[in-house]
């Protein structure tokens, strides 16, 4: 444990640490663009220059720890150099924050205010380059904003291993470009480079000009795309900045999804599917309870379902792997004795979707299979007893043709689907973004998600529904 001194403060460091890591771990901030804890050291932005007594300036991110070294992160020389580095970086940067999606969460913007604060020393024309360069059907590249920190190329080489990006030409006309025969569009982790980009060079086409980030609020959540259960942030309009004109649906829609760093599960990454949860959650919703396709009040439908359960002699239930731990436990506690339960895999891989890899993506496309299997019998395909007269189907992904003949059906679903009308009782339930809970991933790690929006009154939370269904039937038989 070598002891080093940063700004006079004695700090115990480890031999395998760099000065930058030691400083950050001890609450001493050193600004940096290109360094990233999960990527190799590039040392090209030169923003983390610090002064070492007797050795002058060098970059902290590539500086090994030497016992007794005296590092200064705030000397006049360091400050002057940081200022100059920002002058160099902004020399050809368009400084178009006003129309840049990154504004508000841009490292360059923050550093400029904190460490430079001066207008450009140059009055010459800037070097121009391509804007809105199509990297894939998901990502646009603005080469003028790019500061060539090479985080994105390093990501595609070291993490996603798609090798999809490289640098073309040299000097101040170098550009990030896709590599021939290595389409970024086929990299299922490509969108991480948007988060990695310290400036607004890499832009999400989904999020392009959709919202200013300061009007948005991130709600911690869990991706239901597979049993990895990556922690994510769902960004949506802040309630205090609710839109009063325009389309009110924008107040309750998902603006974008970013990873929520979690060393236990996904590190700082998620896959592209996790960014596209709006495609799952914002399908047309079922918000009307029905009896054999006829709209009824929610309470009427619940009462009817309760009577069917009470009357059934051999009821079976298909339990959802998209249910939260709380819902699954409630079902088990309240209705587990009543029904013969099977685990149902709601989500199946879509065509063209990557099935499995060694980074994050898992073959089981459901968030809570682990908990469901722990609580209920998992036989793969449900095997109904002869004489099964009632089936409760919780969630999607079940082929109604496989229902036992003559059995009545209680169907709990969130989205508009043809099966809804075929069920004897249809009960609309809330979705993940409307309630809080936990998922257990395949490694047994439990992660929490929180509600982003309020649910519609005509829709019921599954947990409350199970409590209601288990209550003794009222009045008539």
């Amino acid at each position, binding site marked *: 444990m070598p002891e080093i001194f940063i700004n006079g403060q004695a700090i115990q460091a480890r031999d395998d640490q760099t000065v930058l890591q030691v400083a950050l771990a001890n609450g001493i901030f050193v600004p940096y663009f290109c360094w990233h804890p999960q990527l190799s050291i590039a040392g*090209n932005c030169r923003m983390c220059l610090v002064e070492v007594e007797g050795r002058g300036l060098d970059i902290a991110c590539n500086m090994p720890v030497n016992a007794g070294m005296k590092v200064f992160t705030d000397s006049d020389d360091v400050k002057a150099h940081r200022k100059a580095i920002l002058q*160099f970086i902004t020399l050809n940067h368009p400084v178009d924050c006003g129309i840049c999606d990154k504004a508000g969460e841009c490292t360059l913007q923050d550093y400029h205010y904190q460490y430079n604060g001066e207008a450009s020393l140059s009055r010459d024309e800037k070097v121009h380059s391509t804007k809105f360069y199509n990297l894939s059907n998901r990502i646009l590249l603005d080469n003028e904003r790019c500061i*060539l920190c090479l985080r994105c190329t390093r990501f595609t080489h070291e993490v996603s291993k798609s090798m999809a990006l490289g640098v073309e030409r040299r000097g101040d*006309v170098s550009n990030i470009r896709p590599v021939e025969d290595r389409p970024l569009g086929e990299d299922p982790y490509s969108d991480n480079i948007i988060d990695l980009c310290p400036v607004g060079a890499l832009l999400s086409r989904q999020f392009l000009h959709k919202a200013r980030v300061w009007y948005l609020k991130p709600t911690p959540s869990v991706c239901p795309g597979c049993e990895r259960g990556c922690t994510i942030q769902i960004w949506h309009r802040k309630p205090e900045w609710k839109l009063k004109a325009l389309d009110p649906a924008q107040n309750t829609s998902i603006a974008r999804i970013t990873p929520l760093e979690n060393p236990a599960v996904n590190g700082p990454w998620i896959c592209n599917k996790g960014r596209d949860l709006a495609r799952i959650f914002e399908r047309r919703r079922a918000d009307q309870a029905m009896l054999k396709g006829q709209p009824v009040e929610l309470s009427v439908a619940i009462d009817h379902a309760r009577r069917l359960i009470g009357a059934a002699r051999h009821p079976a239930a298909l339990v959802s792997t998209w249910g939260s731990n709380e819902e699954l436990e409630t079902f088990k506690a309240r209705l587990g004795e009543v029904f013969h339960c099977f685990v149902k895999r709601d989500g199946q891989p879509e065509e063209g979707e990557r099935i499995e890899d060694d980074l994050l993506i898992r073959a089981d496309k459901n968030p809570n299979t682990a908990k469901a299997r722990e609580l209920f019998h998992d036989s793969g395909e449900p095997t109904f007893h002869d004489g099964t007269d009632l089936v409760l189907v919780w969630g999607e992904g079940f082929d109604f043709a496989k229902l036992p003949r003559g059995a009545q059906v209680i169907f709990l679903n969130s989205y508009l689907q043809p099966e809804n009308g075929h069920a004897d009782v249809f009960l609309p339930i809330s979705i993940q973004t409307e309630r809080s809970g936990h998922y257990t991933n395949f490694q047994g790690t439990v992660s929490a998600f929180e509600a982003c929006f309020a649910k519609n009154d005509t829709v019921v939370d599954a947990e409350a529904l199970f409590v209601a269904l288990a209550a003794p039937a009222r009045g008539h038989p």
Partner: protein
Amino acid sequence: MPGRQLIMTFPVTGTSHSLVEYRARGGYVALDKALRQMKPTDITKEVTASGLQGRGGAAFSMGRKWQVIVPDDGQPHYLIANADEGEPGTFKDRWILENNPHMLLESMLIASYALGVRNCFVYIRGEFDLPYRRLAGAVEEAYAAGYFGERILGTEFSCDIVVYRGAGAYVAGEASGLLASLEGKKSYPRNRPPRLTVKGLYQRPTVVNNVESLSNIAWIIAHGAAAFKEVGTPKSPGTRLFSVSGHVNRPGVFEVELGYPWMKFLEEDCGGIRNGRALKCVVPGGVSSKVLTATDIKDLHLSHEALWDAGSTLGSGGMIVIAEGTCMVTLLQVMLRFYHHESCGQCTPCRHGTGWMHRILDRIVAGQGRPEDIERLYYISKFNDGTTICGLGDAAGYACTGILDKYRDEFEYYIEHKRSRHDGNLECLRSS
């Protein structure tokens, strides 16, 4: 003849580069001596004792670089001859590659033996056509004669060589950029630590030496370190090849014994200044070294220590002689255009700084200079010094401040009058 000669010892003819003639001049005797009579560590000791300094620009002690390598530590080592001669004004290694390639190959074999190298490389710039063909021919001859391959000269020592052609980036001449290029990547220089002698090519200990530096090894082993130290000055032993260009009557490559009087060299060997003009200044060792005025060099001797004392360096030996009446603003513009064009674009200060300086100079030359421009050039140079990964950014700054320090008045004149104080030409066409 500027002093004693070690490399350019023979008249160049159409066949003087061949193996037969090289052997007739005593070639490959040193290799035989090294392999049969010396241990690898003896060779490194001999090279260290000779005081030989790198000839690529930094003049770092060869022996000290080699000492880092432990020849028998069980891991592969690599030796690379840096023949990516790209420093403007420098074309001395080209002479060796064209006219004495076997001297390089023999020296590389001895060096490989000393450093425990099984595979060595020559990284040659892509623009070198004749040098490449001569070198490739020499490699073929050497393989046929059994100097490369398995069990060389019947000893246990085996070594192979690969000649790799670069694609024309100046920055690939920087040792770590060269390695990146050799590995098949973009020639971005690398941050140190680790040093290349610890983790170089394919993450293995690697020695990268300039062609001329390496070529001295055969001579040192054949004649001994003591004999080498007798040539040159005590602090700069040996000779240097200078490629002289610019406004002299007899430009070309000259081998000069270190410590030789500079003006004598220019007057007698290079035939004096063209068109009878007076000497204005000299870029001593490639454009990355600071210019020295005629007064600066009047009593100087050509040695590393003398140049360091004068605030410049012998650099790569690319001497550009500039006659009185040459426009320094245009000269600096040309230099900065080069740095701008060759900056690899990896790290921030150089990527933007070289372009910034170039644009300022373009503007001054176009008659749109502004009074603050000179301060701005100093600012850019200052913050390129020591802040970049490799030396390119620093060198651009030195070239700029070197000229500004000494010819600031010309820049002020150009900015104020929107034209050059001289005729604005670099060619030195007329007599005054």
